[in-house]
């Protein structure tokens, strides 16, 4: 049975108690407030521990509208359910950059938007994320792309949708996050 925020908090509390931490029961409501953070960290922990292929379970495509080569990610990062984690963008594709050598239409990631100002090989298209905005460059033109780009990125899953095999990670993350609470309670 999948976790709920309440059962996850109880589980984390029991682990703290079992480990000998002198924590009062009032820490349980406080642990509940950590659940969103734990869920946000889960896809990152899964990637770190099990690799990209398994991390794909918590990734999906977001459609970002581009105007003059750039588009805001806010509509996706502000979602209340399964919002995009911008730091975990793994792929950006655009139909206009499909070519014989780039059948998937992938853009290559650069560190910042200023890196797009430099002249680069026109064999590829490029993107950078800054200020919660997707900046692109194609053919050394930062305004060339319009229409929609597809951004594949990780998202914090709903607690009920965490894969069974990844559930043991959640209490671990909770314990990691709760160290500050424990120090205060002790």
């Amino acid at each position: 049975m999948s976790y709920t925020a309440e059962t996850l908090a109880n589980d984390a509390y029991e682990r703290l108690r079992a480990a000998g931490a002198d924590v009062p029961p009032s820490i349980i409501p406080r642990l509940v407030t950590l659940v969103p953070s734990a869920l946000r960290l889960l896809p990152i922990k899964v990637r770190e521990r099990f690799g990209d292929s398994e991390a794909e379970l918590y990734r999906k495509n977001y459609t970002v509208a581009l105007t003059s080569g750039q588009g805001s990610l806010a509509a996706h990062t502000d979602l209340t359910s399964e919002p995009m984690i911008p730091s975990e963008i793994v792929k950006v594709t655009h139909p206009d950059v499909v070519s014989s050598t780039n059948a998937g239409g992938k853009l290559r990631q650069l560190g910042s938007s200023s890196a797009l100002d430099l002249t680069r090989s026109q064999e590829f298209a490029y993107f950078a994320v800054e200020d919660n905005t997707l900046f692109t460059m194609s053919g050394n033109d930062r305004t060339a792309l319009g229409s929609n780009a597809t951004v594949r990125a990780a998202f914090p899953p709903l607690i009920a949708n965490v894969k069974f095999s990844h559930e043991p990670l959640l209490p671990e993350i909770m314990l990691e996050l709760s160290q500050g609470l424990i120090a205060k309670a002790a």
Partner: protein
Amino acid sequence: MAVTRCTLATVRGRLIAAVNAAPAATWATTISSSNDNRRNDTELDNIILAADARICQARAKKVGDGYRSLFLSLSASIAHGGTIPDHLGPIEQVTIKHVTSDPDYKAGKFDASVSLADIERWRANTGTRYGANHNAANSVLSGFYIRRGSQLFYTGFDAKCLLATFTRSAACQAPETDEDMLLGLALGDALKEGDTGPFLATIVADARAEYVELLKQSEPDPSETIVLAA
């Protein structure tokens, strides 16, 4: 098992025997002009019931006393921020009904690290940051309380306190095992000049010593030791 209480008639009989205080058959209508040991029944009963009240209050006030349960009862519902009703000694337990549909009240969770601001914040649950509201099923917020003087603040649907109270009546309420102490205390009040023989004085002194022992508080307030969450 119901605890047998002292019997007023029995104690009165022993008191009369001890101080030779039996009222004459005509006492009610013919008042003796000379000093004697006689008291009327009402006077004797009042003395015994006053002594009974002292013992009952001592037991009711004492946390951990084996007979405190004779005087414990659940209060009426207390609203959040409401006043805890008059009672004797420490509160035995704060009980909280978490959800309106709960069939029973559960022991409240006292936690020294919980502040009144915590309680208020949990009740508000702004943005549902704590999941289900404090008075909803399976909420992790339910069941905590804090007292400020006689005011009770809590999370959950409703609260009642298990309180010790005592109301004098026409019958003795002290357990039967206290009969000798009851007699001794009553005797102390019933003595008149000329009654203070060494034997009676010993009975009275013993009863008072026993009563003083009963008054000693020996255990902490039980409701405010930390109760672990279920």
